[in-house]
Every structure is written in C-alpha cells, then in structure tokens.
C-alpha cells in the first residue's frame, strides 16, 4: 500500500466516521444522564429521510438539516415520554422507535415521491459541497504535508468539521459547566441531584433533546453529505455501531472520537479491499464488516479495559414520597 492509497483510505475514514461521531456523542449525552438509547439508529434514519425529502423539495440544504433535526427530535420526544414520564422500559422504547422509523420512512417516502421509499436524487444546491480550506491548493504540491493537508484535512463538507468541533465542545459542556456536572450526576445518582433541588426530569429531558439534535445531524449528514438522497434503510446499522463505539469509548467524548475513527477506518478498509489476502489465507470481507461488532463484544466482556456504564442508566427515577 503506497502513501497515496493510505491518504485516500484515511480521507474516507473521516467521511465515514462523521455520522458515527454525531450519533456516538448523541448517545453519550443521553446515556450519561441515565437514559439508555438503542433508538439512535431509528432517529438517524428518520432524520436522513426528512432532511433528504425537504432538501429535494426546497432545494435548500440547510432547510433539509433543520427538517432532519425536527424528525429526530420528534422521536426523541417519544423516547423521553416513554422512558422519563411514563417510566417505561428504555430498551423496549428504543426498539419501538427503530421500527417506527424503519416503517414510517418508507410509507411516507412512497406516498410523497412514489419511488419505492427513496427520495429523488439531490442536485448541487440540495446537498453539502466540500469546503476547500485556505492555502489547500498552494500547499498541495509539497511532499508528505501537501496531500495530508489538501486531501485529508481540507475538502470535507461543513458537517464533518462541525462533528469534530463538537468533541471538545461536548467535553467542555460535560466536565466544565454546571449543566454538565448535573447531567453526569443524574446518570449516576439522581436522588442526590433531586435532593439538591434540581429537577431530574428536566435534566433528563434536556439530555434526550441534545441526543435528538445530534442524531438529526448524523442523519442529515448521511443523506445530504455522504449520499445524495435517502434510500430505504440507509443507516444500515450505523446507529448500533455508534452505540458500540460509545461503549468502546467508555462514555467519554475524546475517546468517542478515537472509537468512531477506528470504526470508520474499518469501514473504509472494508470498502477499499473486498478481501484481504494475507498469503496463507484470505480474510473475507464479511469478517472486516463484522469487526466493529466483534470488537464491541470483546470490550464488553472486559478483556480490554473495563467499560463501566453510568450507574443509574436504564432506571426510571421515582421521587420518594
């Protein structure tokens, strides 16, 4: 493998990791506040659909993003209602949301566009253009640094840079602000937060809403940045890979960046090399595709560092009377 190929693979790693990073940070906020969310997949799917539909009709990519966030927030609201207000099982609610999105996107897509669940392909105004960073063209001829800057760092859509900027932003919000402290406390010991006179319900709804916004961005990027339109079931398990990355990252923002980049890299390698020939035997592509899931199971088993979920995760909060 030569340098140019490596740059290409890393370039597509960044692109493929972006939706995972958005979704992983989304799950991070929700789960750090004690609300498990296996409905990331469904929220992303709904966002991808509505953003592509609105962008196709209006021709505006930003209206599309807003619509995607709206769709995702709607489902996040359902999840909040079920798991916070009605104290239902958060896992079951997540499963329901995934199916709701899988069904409704096709139903509405067929009704609106009649293309078997797809949205019309987006033209230039309706999807994100890549941004060329300053000096990219002038630095490009330089050896080594040139390709790294002009191909790997420059030339992505704005959402890619936003996703990466969200990592320090999330870390700051979680560890350096009062809201972040409360959010983490609600996920570990809600009774203590309640005693301090802070609304557990309020903080949890806020966390679920942040999760909705971020999933919306993840879905919008899928439909408007990575692809040019919505296709039936286009998330293809990315919500669950993001969940896997979240566990791998031990529910921490900077680790989330590393984990999603690793899983993005695996996907990029899998796309580039259908099967990897090691001389003695060939690794089938299916194995590379399944690797994120296998890694997650190994991590969950505690063989590579112990992942400890938030203590109050999954439990509805009942105020003492």
């Amino acid at each position, binding site marked *: 493998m030569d340098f140019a190929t490596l740059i290409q693979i890393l370039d597509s790693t960044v692109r493929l990791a972006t939706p995972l990073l958005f979704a992983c940070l989304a799950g991070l906020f929700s789960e750090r506040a004690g609300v498990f969310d*296996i409905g990331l997949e469904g929220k992303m799917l709904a966002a991808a659909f509505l953003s592509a539909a609105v962008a196709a009709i209006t021709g505006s990519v930003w209206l599309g993003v807003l619509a995607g966030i709206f769709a995702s927030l709607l489902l996040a609201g*359902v999840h909040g*209602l*079920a*798991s916070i207000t*009605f*104290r*239902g*099982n*958060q*896992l*079951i*609610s997540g*499963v*329901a*949301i*995934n*199916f*709701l999105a*899988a*069904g*409704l996107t*096709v*139903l*509405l897509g*067929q*009704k609106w566009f009649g293309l078997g*669940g797809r949205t019309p392909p987006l033209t230039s105004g309706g999807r994100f253009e890549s941004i060329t960073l300053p000096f990219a063209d002038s630095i490009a001829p330089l050896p080594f640094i040139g390709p790294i800057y002009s191909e790997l760092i420059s030339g992505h859509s704005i959402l890619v840079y936003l996703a990466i900027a969200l990592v320090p932003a999330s870390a700051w919000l979680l560890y350096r602000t009062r809201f972040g402290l409360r959010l983490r406390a609600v996920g570990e010991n809600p009774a203590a937060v309640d005693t301090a006179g802070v609304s557990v319900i309020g903080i949890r709804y806020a966390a679920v809403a942040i999760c909705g916004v971020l999933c919306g961005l993840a879905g919008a990027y899928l439909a408007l940045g990575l692809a040019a339109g919505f296709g039936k079931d286009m998330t293809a*398990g990315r919500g*669950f890979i993001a*969940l*896997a990355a979240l*566990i791998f990252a031990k529910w921490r923002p900077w680790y989330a960046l590393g984990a999603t980049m690793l899983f993005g890299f695996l996907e990029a390698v899998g796309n580039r090399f259908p099967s990897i020939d090691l001389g003695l035997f060939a690794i*089938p592509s*299916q*194995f590379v*595709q*399944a690797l994120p*899931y*296998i890694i*997650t*199971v190994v991590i*969950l*088993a*505690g063989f590579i560092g112990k992942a400890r*979920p938030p203590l109050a995760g999954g439990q509805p909060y009942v105020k003492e009377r």
Partner: protein
Amino acid sequence: MSAMPKWADAVLVPLISLLIAFVISGLVILAIGEDPVAAMKLMVTGALGSTYGWGYTLYYSTNFIFTGLAVSVAFQTGLFNIGGEGQASLGGLGVALVCLFVPWPHWSMAFVAAIVMGSLFGAAWAAIPAYLQAKRGSHVVITTIMFNYIAAALMIYVLVTVLRPTGAMDTASARFDASLKLPRLGDILGMVGIPFNNRNPANISLIVALIACVGVWLLMWRTRLGYQLRAFGKSEQASVYAGINPVRITMYAMLISGGLSGMMAINTVMGEAQRLLLNSVEGAGFIGIAVALMGRSHPVGVLLAALLFGFLYQGGAELALWTTIPRELIIVIQALVILFTGAMDNMVRRPVESLFLMLRKGKA
C-alpha cells in the same frame, strides 16, 4: 392487595394499549391518503377469507409463536433477548446442514434431527451473550444486538463461499432432497376430512409450535427450573439469597430462548423454502418482541398475539398487492404495538388503576 383485579391486569390493559396502537395505525393509513376501513376489510378477506389466506396466516404465526416464546422465556427471567433474529438464522444453518448432508430415509427422521439441530445452533448463538452476561456482567441487550450483525455477516460468508452450489447465481444453498418435503397443513387436515387449501406453506411445524407452547407453560409453571427462572426474573437478589445460582439460571434462560428461536427455522427453511436463503428470518426475530410484550410473556398470550401478527403479516402482504400501501405498514403497526404495550404501558395502567381504586372507594 393490588389496585386492580387480575383480569384487568392481564387482559384489559393490553387490550386498551392494543386499541391505541391500532387507532394510530389507522391514522397513519389516513395520512397516506388511504381508507383505513377499506384497508381493514381487505386485510380480513385476504388473510382470513379463504383457507388459502388462513394457510399463510398460520404459516407466519408459526414463526412468531417460536420467536415470541423465545423472547418471553427470557423476559420471565428478567433478560431482554433481542438476538432472536441472529439465533433464528443460525438455527436455519443447523437445519440446512442436517438436510443437505445426511441421506435421510424418511422425512420424519430428518424433521426430528432438524428440530434438534435448529435449536442447538440457535442455543449456541445465544450461549456467548449469555455467558458474558452471567460471568462478566456485559449487558445482554447490547451483546445480542452485536450478535445479530455478526450472524448476518457469517450467513453471507457461509452462503456465498461455502454452501452456494458452483455456478448458482443467487446466494442460497442447494435445494434439499425432494423426499424431505414436510407434510402441508392441507395434507394433514385432509386426512381427517377437513378440506383445506394446499397451495400455501403452512405445515406440520405449526403442531411443533403448539407443543412448544404447552412445553414452555409446563416448564415455567410446573417445574423447579421454571420456578427458579421466574423467581430470578422477579428479584435477582432475593433468588440468589434463596440459593439460586445466577450464572446457571442466566445460561439456562438464554439457551432455552435461543433454542426456541432457532427452532423457527424448521418452518421457514425446511417447511417452506426447502433450501437456506439469505435473510430467511425476515424480521420474525424482532416481531417476537412485540408478540411477547403483547402476550404478557405467557404462552396463551403469545399464541394469541402470534395469530394476530400472522394475520397482520398476511393481510399486509395482500394490502401491498392490491393497494399502494407498502408492506412496511406492518413494521409501523409492530412498532406501535411494542411502544404502547411495552414502553408506554404505564400510560394506560395508571388511569385504569385509579379508576378501579375510585370504584372500590365508592363501594366501601
């Protein structure tokens, strides 16, 4: 003393939840510009109007009985097994191997072997998540989801590179020997003089599914193991204090659950397709979740819920055939049933509870 009589808890609350789910489904049909009443009529005639329709309904129901029982056994033990999809596809692999590579003299022997192999393969696929949950505390929900994806990749690999006959175009195994065809429901009912359409895939696996219902009931409510499983599901701490081994119980619950999921493959792989297809499970593993939630994890409830979903599935196929409503409507209905009977249970339960409390106060 609980706030509600038992019948209200077991029947009334699920029925109200179900009603809400269906009303919203009707609204969804309205929203996409179709007539819900006409759609319902079409579903009823398509699924229940002829023995042909009934055959398909019962064929789908057979799948859902197996996966519903699988989820419910795990639920009773306090475990949420979302891995039915993966376990059932591995069960399909077991059934296919036994049908492809052993020269059986009679279908009945192959059938017994297929039941054993299907459930063994399904149980084996549930064993790793079970062990990790029991021994290392890794959450079984996440690991079973991961195992669904690993199973999907494994099945593609097996079908593309191992089981696909050379020169064949589609990713599927070779056809089983013609002598291994299972008796269709029409044949069985024909023997006792009941005329039943024979051009549908309902087969003898339905009877196995019904036996499994009785078996699960006996296991859960009439044996020591069943008592331990349910006790563990009610309170892990109390049951451990009472001397129940948590590792053993978790393993048993997941192995039984995986085995039941895997057994589903006798119906789809051996009963219908007569070869192993890619994605032979078609979401039945997930529908099992809705079935178990609706059936309150009781075999009788699971049987009724599986019949309902069999009807929805066949009715939905008819809808897709005659109207512009896509098949995905069923996924929406399934989602709403899971949402209202599972996650939003308290939304219905609390008002009903206070209603009963009011009634009792009025009497006193």
